């Protein structure tokens, strides 16, 4: 019956079964989590409790206050109070557009979802798009125009700007510099050209801490068509402007529901540090980033590309050979791709491999880059720095970005900046750069003003505002327009003018409205300037000894632009599950050699610079490498992001933006306590996760279902007829096979369900509130483990253990099988959480929603109760969405259609791994999935009858490989 299952482990402590881990395991919350830690004596505490009990009793006698009800003065025609309106718009990932649909409740944006009709979204969003909403309401946003440390006015700024510009008129703007990040906005590009015509000798520079300049054009991949995928240090499923599309296609190539005709793509990944992408590989090779180039060359030689080949590390031999075999066996059905962190030479080799295998134009198509006037960022920035140092710059406009924080450290941007006579920074927040500028102009959020963006494949979207600017924000288009004409036009006029020119249509107004409502349109006029050929960033230093230092975008903060976003700060990082911090990621082997433990500080010495950082031992990290995540250690981020973690930019030089040798480390006598959720809610000795291989599945389709014996329907002490009522029966199926572990469901749930953020100290105490968590399991050795992601929401058990122990019936199952949590009944005994085998219940230990600023209150979903202290809460299957669909259906006297209800987690999922629906309807999609032999109920052997079920994970390994 019981197949021998590999041992699944979540952390190195669990694998080693340390005493600390055992003691953690046996407590639901860590020691002291339920206790008040202030220096308050027990008697004082009891006295206070007595007083507060009496007051609370009296408090209950107060009657309901009379509230105000405020109608519109002039109600807009399209507004129906109580009904949300949806607007198509776009958010940007590193400057590239991703289509979104934003929900507006009485003029207040409350949720961002993906736009199905947009090719870079397909209805899903990234974690950042979800978090953008919180950025809008961030109380730390720059609110007023500031001049130095004093407040300024737009008029005052224009006066000074005009004085500076008139001084430049004679020398054709030779002293003016414009610094932007990656620009895909057609309107901004038009404006920059106009700016260039007015000031022909002015220069436009670009700097992006996460540049994508390693290929001349843009490669578009179709992973759905690929049978073999080989990724060389590429995080194409997560850190890529087309990641959502990649994930959808990748999932299509991996989805298996029945044994008959089951087929999956095979995925090889070689990377130095575990990424979301690499964790989904059938064969993952941990290898230093500097070895990737040789691996690409060796692969090229093996698939028959002209060239010498190269030596690869011995550990990579088998992997390269197997990948090459599979690629040759599937010509025209493979994809080889390299990450943006690899130099152009590697991309050139990869392009040759694809061409020789016939993949080009089949699974890989090319198009012009949507980024306009792409220049190689470090070179562009170096030129600017030289000009600034030479005193050639009189006026510098920094349009977004934070170069003082993230520019290569050898450039000393801050020092050069001081030589500029008039420095203007435009940004959403005050940051390190704006502190050194004369003027800080607050930017409008993308939900507040008009703009446009283009996606990787060139599709253009108009960014339309949903709300009047909350503060005195100025759009980047308006600010740039002020350089060219005065009074400047409004952002709406500027954007519309661009599109009118593009359209050239007589019925432009009608076309404009259609583009606005669709949220995606082709863009015919391409970029004006051809893409310059990419060049290697630096004179390549000969490989030196020592460890390899690797810089990567943080999976949550990216380059630090989201540092003040509390949702992202508290989102557990993939694998390490660290919140509120970054760590220097080291391999278990290196940690063993250097006697490092999690949290130990090390001093990193690299090219004469030193940096102290705490260590996290990451299974799967390549042996002699240390990964540093950018985006932390901000000095001026706001009250959430300032002074969190260490600043990796302090070691990042223009010669090695992504990786380099020559790192040495030294252990410091200091420790950091990380707030990691890795071991939270761990369950001892029970197999939550089931996995197998495709071959096993075809041989024995019911392998997953038969791993554990599940009691029959009538084997219960309760009335077995109880849940056989007519009507709907809501259920969820989660496909572990397609889930890539990207965390989007966690943050979408947070946005939808008004889930509070608790802070680092509270996370350490095990009090994080996420209703759906991603558990990461490992199997095999810590040096090269397999990764398994498992999203865990409430299981909505039909025989729910939580319900039996609630003394006040605050948790009950309703007629449709939803396990309800009734907040107004809950008295906070936490017995339910004790008795929940899945550990999905979350308790409001403190009034986490108590100290919200007025703007933060606006982010709350009006259809979900905001819970207060002392109340248990958990996943509701998005009950508010069920009820709103039910009312819509009943008003029309019909049944709810299959697919009409999509919980927030399912809606955001780029891989469509989560399916929700009615299992009483045999035709529904979820009913079909539950009939699959892969379907299993987590801990169903406890007879809890979970309504949430899982599809066992399948891998498709190359049988010829040993590992």
């Amino acid at each position, binding site marked *: 019956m019981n197949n021998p299952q590999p041992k699944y482990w979540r952390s190195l402590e669990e694998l080693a079964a340390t005493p600390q881990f055992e003691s953690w395991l046996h407590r639901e919350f860590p020691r002291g989590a339920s206790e008040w830690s202030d220096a308050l004596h027990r008697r004082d505490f009891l006295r206070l409790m007595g007083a507060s009990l009496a007051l609370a009793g009296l408090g209950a006698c107060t009657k309901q206050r009379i509230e105000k009800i*405020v*109608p519109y*003065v002039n109600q807009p025609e399209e507004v129906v*109070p109580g009904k949300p309106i949806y607007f198509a718009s776009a958010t940007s990932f590193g400057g590239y557009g991703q289509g979104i649909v934003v929900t507006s409740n009485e003029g207040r944006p409350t949720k961002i979802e993906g736009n199905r009709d947009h090719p870079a979204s397909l209805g899903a969003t990234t974690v950042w798009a979800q978090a953008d909403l919180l950025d809008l309401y961030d109380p730390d946003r720059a609110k007023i125009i500031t001049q130095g440390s004093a407040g300024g006015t737009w008029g005052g700024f224009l006066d000074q700007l005009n004085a500076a510009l008139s001084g430049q008129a004679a020398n054709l703007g030779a002293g003016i510099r414009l610094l932007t990040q990656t620009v895909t906005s057609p309107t901004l590009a038009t404006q920059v050209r106009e700016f260039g015509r007015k000031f022909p000798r002015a220069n436009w520079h670009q700097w992006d801490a996460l540049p994508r300049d390693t290929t001349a054009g843009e490669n578009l991949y179709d992973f759905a068509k690929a049978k073999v995928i080989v990724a060389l240090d590429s995080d194409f499923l997560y850190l890529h402007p087309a990641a959502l599309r990649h994930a959808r296609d990748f999932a299509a190539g991996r989805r298996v529901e029945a044994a008959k005709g089951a087929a999956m793509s095979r995925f090889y990944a070689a990377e130095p540090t575990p990424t979301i992408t690499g964790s989904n590989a059938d064969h993952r090779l941990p290898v230093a980033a500097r070895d990737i180039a040789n691996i690409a060359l060796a692969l090229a030689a093996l698939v028959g590309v002209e060239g010498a080949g190269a030596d690869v590390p011995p550990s990579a031999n088998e992997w390269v050979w197997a990948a090459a075999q599979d690629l040759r066996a599937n010509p025209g059905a493979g994809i080889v791709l390299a990450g943006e962190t690899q130099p152009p030479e590697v991309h050139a080799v990869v392009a040759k491999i694809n061409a020789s295998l016939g993949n080009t134009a089949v699974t890989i198509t090319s198009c012009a880059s949507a980024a306009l006037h792409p220049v190689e960022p470090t070179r562009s920035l170096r030129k600017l720095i030289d000009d600034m140092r030479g005193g050639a710059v009189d006026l510098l406009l920094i349009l977004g970005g934070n170069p003082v924080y993230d520019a290569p450290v050898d450039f000393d941007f801050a020092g050069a900046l001081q030589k500029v006579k008039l420095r203007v920074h435009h940004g959403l927040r005050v940051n390190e750069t704006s502190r050194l500028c004369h003027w800080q102009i607050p930017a409008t959020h993308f939900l507040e003003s008009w703009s446009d963006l283009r996606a990787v494949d060139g599709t253009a979207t108009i960014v339309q505002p949903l709300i009047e600017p909350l503060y005195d924000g100025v759009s980047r288009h308006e600010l740039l327009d002020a350089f060219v004409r005065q009074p400047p036009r409004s952002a709406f006029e500027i954007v519309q003018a661009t599109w009118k020119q593009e359209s050239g249509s007589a019925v432009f107004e009608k076309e404009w409205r259609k583009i606005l409502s669709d949220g995606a349109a082709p863009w015919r006029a391409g970029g004006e300037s051809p893409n310059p050929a990419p060049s290697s960033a630096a004179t390549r230093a000969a490989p030196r000894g020592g460890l390899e230092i690797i810089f990567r975008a943080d999976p949550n903060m990216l380059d630090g632009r989201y540092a003040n976003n509390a949702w992202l700060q508290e989102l557990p990082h993939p694998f390490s599950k660290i919140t509120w911090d970054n760590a220097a990621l080291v391999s278990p082997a290196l940690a063993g050699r250097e006697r490092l433990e999690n949290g130990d500080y090390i001093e990193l010495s690299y090219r004469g610079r030193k940096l102290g950082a705490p260590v996290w031992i990451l299974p799967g990290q390549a042996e002699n490498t240390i990964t540093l995540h950018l985006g932390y250690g901000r000095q001026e981020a706001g009250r959430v992001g300032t002074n969190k973690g260490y600043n990796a930019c302090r070691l990042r030089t223009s010669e090695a933006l992504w990786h380099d040798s020559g790192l040495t480390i030294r252990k410091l006598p200091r420790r950091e306590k990380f707030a990691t959720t890795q071991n939270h809610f761990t369950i001892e000795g029970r197999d939550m996760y089931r996995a197998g291989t495709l071959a096993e599945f075809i041989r024995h389709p019911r392998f997953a279902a038969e791993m554990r014996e599940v009691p029959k329907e009538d084997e219960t002490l309760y009335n077995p007829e109880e849940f056989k009522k007519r009507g709907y029966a809501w259920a969820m199926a989660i496909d572990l096979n397609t889930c890539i572990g990207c965390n989007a469901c966690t943050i979408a749930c947070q946005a939808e369900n008004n889930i509070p953020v608790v802070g680092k100290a509270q996370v350490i105490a095990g009090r994080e509130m996420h209703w759906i968590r991603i558990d990461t399991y490992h199997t095999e050795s810590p040096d090269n483990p397999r990764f398994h992601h498992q999203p865990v929401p409430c299981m909505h058990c039909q025989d729910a253990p939580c319900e039996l122990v609630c003394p006040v019936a605050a948790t009950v199952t309703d007629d449709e099988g939803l396990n309800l949590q009734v907040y107004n009944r809950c008295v906070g005994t936490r017995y339910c959480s004790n008795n929940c085998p899945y550990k999905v219940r979350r308790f409001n230990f403190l009034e986490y929603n108590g100290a919200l600023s007025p703007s933060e209150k606006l982010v709350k979903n009006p259809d979900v109760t905001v819970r207060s202290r002392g109340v248990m809460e958990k996943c509701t299957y998005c009950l508010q969405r069920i009820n709103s669909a039910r009312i819509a259906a009943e*008003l029309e006297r019909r049944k709810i259609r299959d697919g009409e209800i999509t919980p927030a987690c399912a809606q955001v999922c780029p891989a469509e791994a989560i399916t929700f629906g009615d299992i009483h309807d045999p035709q529904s999609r979820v009913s079909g999935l539950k009939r699959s032999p892969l379907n299993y109920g987590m801990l169903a052997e406890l007879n809890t009858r979970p309504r949430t079920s899982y599809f066992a994970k399948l891998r498709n390994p190359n049988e010829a490989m040993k590992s």
Partner: protein
Amino acid sequence: MAQIFSRSANVHAKVIIVGFVLLVCGAGWVTSAVFWSPYTTYVDVPLNQPVPFSHKHHVGDDGIDCRYCHTSVEKSSFAGIPSTQICMTCHSQLWTEAPLLQPVRASLANNRPLCWNRVNDLPDFVYFNHSIHISKGVGCSTCHGELDRMPLTWRTQTLYMKWCLECHRAPQNHLRPQSEIYNLHWQPPPDQATQGLRLAHQNQVDLSGRLTNCSTCHR
């Protein structure tokens, strides 16, 4: 051996025991009386408003339909409070100089909304939807009473959960034909028991008991 307690101790003990019981019962009674009194429930307590708007005049005397002002009652959870613009459709012609209407005119002139005191208010963890109640055959007067007789508006029901459940347990007792929804003086016919069931069937009202699930109103 001498008596420990004096004779009067018996009496003291009885008085204390009986007195304690009476005190607890009395406290309970007082609490309950306050809980159900108009002081707490606001039932039949007219609220002062920035403009002394009279439903009696507008509905009773002028015969204006509920939906003229409460525009979203059939399509949204919220029935809608009329915008100043709706007031001014008539009052730009009628009573244009009336001092009582000064706040309405000021609202329009200054683009500042009127701030009414909310009469019917549910706790924030309750999600009531007007449109579905109208659609299923629950009329305005079932909850809001005879508004056409209210000079200032007051609450006619406690809006306590007990009261909600009375109807959710047996909706058929309160359903009326669609033609009578906005009739503020509708009375159940003598055969409401059969009529109600017929309407419930016709309007697909769920009589299985699901309406008393917590999830119907709480989320």
